[in-house]
């Protein structure tokens, strides 16, 4: 029980429940299916991005270029559709976007694994590079009217419909895509040597190398995989929004990283879980979408999110320091 309480996930879960109750009691619309489905739909893209960010953070790195990869993959895919066959099926779109994402991710991996450059520097550079390249050579026009019909159809897809007082609430099937990715990442991290290697790399890079992990290969995997997930997330974003705007997505990176850190991943590497990350995503999405329901003006939402991050990551850090002091006592300084 004590262990459970000390876990970061528990704290995030409690905060989440309190936030939901506070909003829900003040404004009953919060607990309607309509609102819940909207929130779920709103967490799909952030959730997929967050899985990628989680892996990078565990490995002791940081990636800020994933948003640029996402929009690059989306926009290029839509362009390809328009050029070759506007009626191509949506799964092909996902496939192409994932491949483009993988390719761009491997560019990150090349600089990071081959030249051992700091991950933040590399991805800050590629963030600008990818986005700039997209705007300059592929296009800067917002594609909305002539969006391929398969995307429009995807946006309207629904799995569960619940009749409401006004209209019906429907759940978008892409939520299952996010859940499937989350399960896959969880299995990868928990049950494969590759996953354990990612934790090992984040915990003690030198020891990981000494133990016999192929650190270069692990890094290629990490950044390639993040690219791939970002491609999928980008495509999902465009398909849900029924548009491909080259200025979209970029700018979301800090929100996603914040969600993952709130979920208990350490910026210093070595720690983080899928469950925690999902809770962190839920917290950020609710704070972003539902504070308006209890009369927090839009401009104040950012302040509230900032507060949640400070408190949510500050409390566990302070707890840990206290625990550390208790363990070592004051006996030896």
């Amino acid at each position, binding site marked *: 029980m004590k262990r459970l309480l000390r876990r970061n996930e528990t704290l995030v879960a409690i905060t989440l429940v309190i936030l939901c109750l506070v909003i829900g009691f003040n404004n009953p619309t919060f607990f309607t299916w309509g609102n819940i489905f909207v929130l779920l739909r709103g967490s799909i893209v952030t959730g997929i991005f967050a899985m990628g960010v989680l892996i990078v953070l565990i490995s002791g790195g940081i990636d800020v270029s994933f948003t640029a990869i996402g929009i690059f993959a989306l926009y290029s895919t839509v362009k390809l559709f328009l050029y070759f066959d506007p009626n191509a099926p949506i799964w092909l779109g996902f496939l192409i976007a994932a491949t483009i994402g993988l390719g761009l991710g491997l560019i990150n991996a090349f600089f990071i694994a081959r030249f051992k450059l700091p991950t933040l520097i590399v991805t800050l550079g590629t963030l600008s590079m990818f986005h700039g390249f997209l705007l300059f050579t592929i296009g800067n026009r917002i594609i909305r009217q002539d969006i391929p019909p398969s995307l429009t159809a995807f946006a309207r897809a629904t799995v569960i419909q619940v009749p409401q007082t006004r209209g019906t609430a429907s759940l978008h099937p892409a939520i299952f895509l996010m859940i499937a990715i989350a399960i896959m990442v969880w299995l990868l991290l*928990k*049950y*494969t*040597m*590759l*996953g*354990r290697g990612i*934790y*090992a790399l*984040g*915990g*003690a890079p*030198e*020891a*990981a190398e*000494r*133990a*016999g*992990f192929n650190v270069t290969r692990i890094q290629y995997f990490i950044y390639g995989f993040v690219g791939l997930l970002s491609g999928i997330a980008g495509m999902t974003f465009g398909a849900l929004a029924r548009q491909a705007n080259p200025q979209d997505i970029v700018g979301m990176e800090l929100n996603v990283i914040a969600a993952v850190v709130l979920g208990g991943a350490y910026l210093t*590497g*070595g*720690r983080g879980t899928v469950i925690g990350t999902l809770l962190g995503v839920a917290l950020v999405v609710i704070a972003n979408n539902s504070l308006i329901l209890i009369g927090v003006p839009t401009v104040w939402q950012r302040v509230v999110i900032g507060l949640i991050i400070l408190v949510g990551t500050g409390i566990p850090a302070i707890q840990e320091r206290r*625990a*550390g002091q208790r*363990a*070592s*006592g*004051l*006996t*030896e*300084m």
Partner: protein
Amino acid sequence: MANEFLNLTGISKSFAGVHALRNVDFSIERGRIHCLVGENGSGKSTIIKIIAGVYERDSGSIVINGKEFEKLSPIDAIREGIQVIYQDFSLFPNLTVAENIALNQALRDGRRFVNWRHVHSIAADALAQIEVDIPLNATVGEMSVANKQLIAIAKALRQQAQLIIMDEPTSALTGREIKVLFSVIRKLQERQSIAFLFVSHKLDEVLEISETTIVIRNGKTVSAGERGEYDGARLIYDMTGHTITEKVYDFEPDLSQPPLIKVENLNAGAALIDINLALRAGEIVGVTGLLGSGRTELALALYGMLPIESGRIYINNKPAVIRSNRDAIAHGIGYVPEDRLSEGLFLEQSIARNVVVRTIDGLRNALGLTIPQKISEQVNQWVNALRIKTPDPALPVKTLSGGNQQRVVLAKWLASNPGIMILNGPTVGVDIGSKDELHDLMKKLAGEGMGLLVISDDIPELLQTCNRVLLMRHGRIVEEIKPKDTNEGELSSKLIKD
């Protein structure tokens, strides 16, 4: 020899023309405990790295398990059962105990997936072999150094270790933890015939555990022999090439002068109970006790880093309030912490900057800018006075050996001319030659009228440098001992009595 596991003959190695090893010979037998002793820079770590396959030798032969190795790679060494436990243990602080123990084996077996039940049973097995009880699900980062070391040993066992090499295994352990470590080692030696090679410069431990001792100096094997052949004096002679005489510091303070610092009925929770002491000019007073006896807390309380609940402190007979280290410094108290790396030095910064860090305010001109000439004067003065061995004071402190680093910490304080110095573990991790010089330096400072309080559990050090020793137990000072009235055996048995 049938029982020989490893033999090195005529090993030489040089780096950029500098000879690190010259014709080193020695052999390691199965099921025996060997100690490799030598001062810092004598070539100990080069030998280990050659045995582990990390460095390639220039000449000489290596025979392991009867096989001659033309070229020894790290993988070869591991396959032959050689496991090196480095000082950082190569553990993953973020993973559990179980995973740390089992991970290397899983990697070596080429596994792609993790079977957690398997991981736990491997780890439980390994810990059972060394008969220690460590929770498998705990995170390694939360473990004490002693437990981390046992985990590292368990990990080595899982890799079919036949020779376990440990680099300075006891430097961060308490007396009791060392006993546990030694008993684990003896068990493994007897039951599984595993050989051990300790690299150490703590002489009393070498004498206690070693069955075969190998001494090297300046990259050459000076002597090798059985347990009975060595005593402390011979080890020191072999390591340093000269005898270091055992001295005592027989000093009687002038009782007519007020004490530099006097403490009356000092209390701080359960850590310090009813402490009374006085330190006079010229005295070197030892404070000893087990870990947790209050010896470090006393130092911290006097330096303002541990809040006191009641009691009075007088500096030169005047009541003084010490609530922070700034107060302490204002009263002329200096403190050399035990962990000089993290608390006493700016490792990445230059020697010069470390020396002047406390006095920099006095080295400025009217505009508040520092005067480089004055700085270098002060730096040179202390580098010379304390004989800090460096080609250039502009080099970072981390390039120095332990003994020289400690001198930089001392120089930093001495530059501000304190009346009282509290030294916590002044020679921990310092090799024997430098240790002797540091002791001489302490006596010289006392001779100039400083009062020194030395917190230490190094019994020979206490006996050789202090004019009296205060023994602490459970937060109280229980006895005052004059070194001339006691001996090592008596003091150490008093020390470990709980």
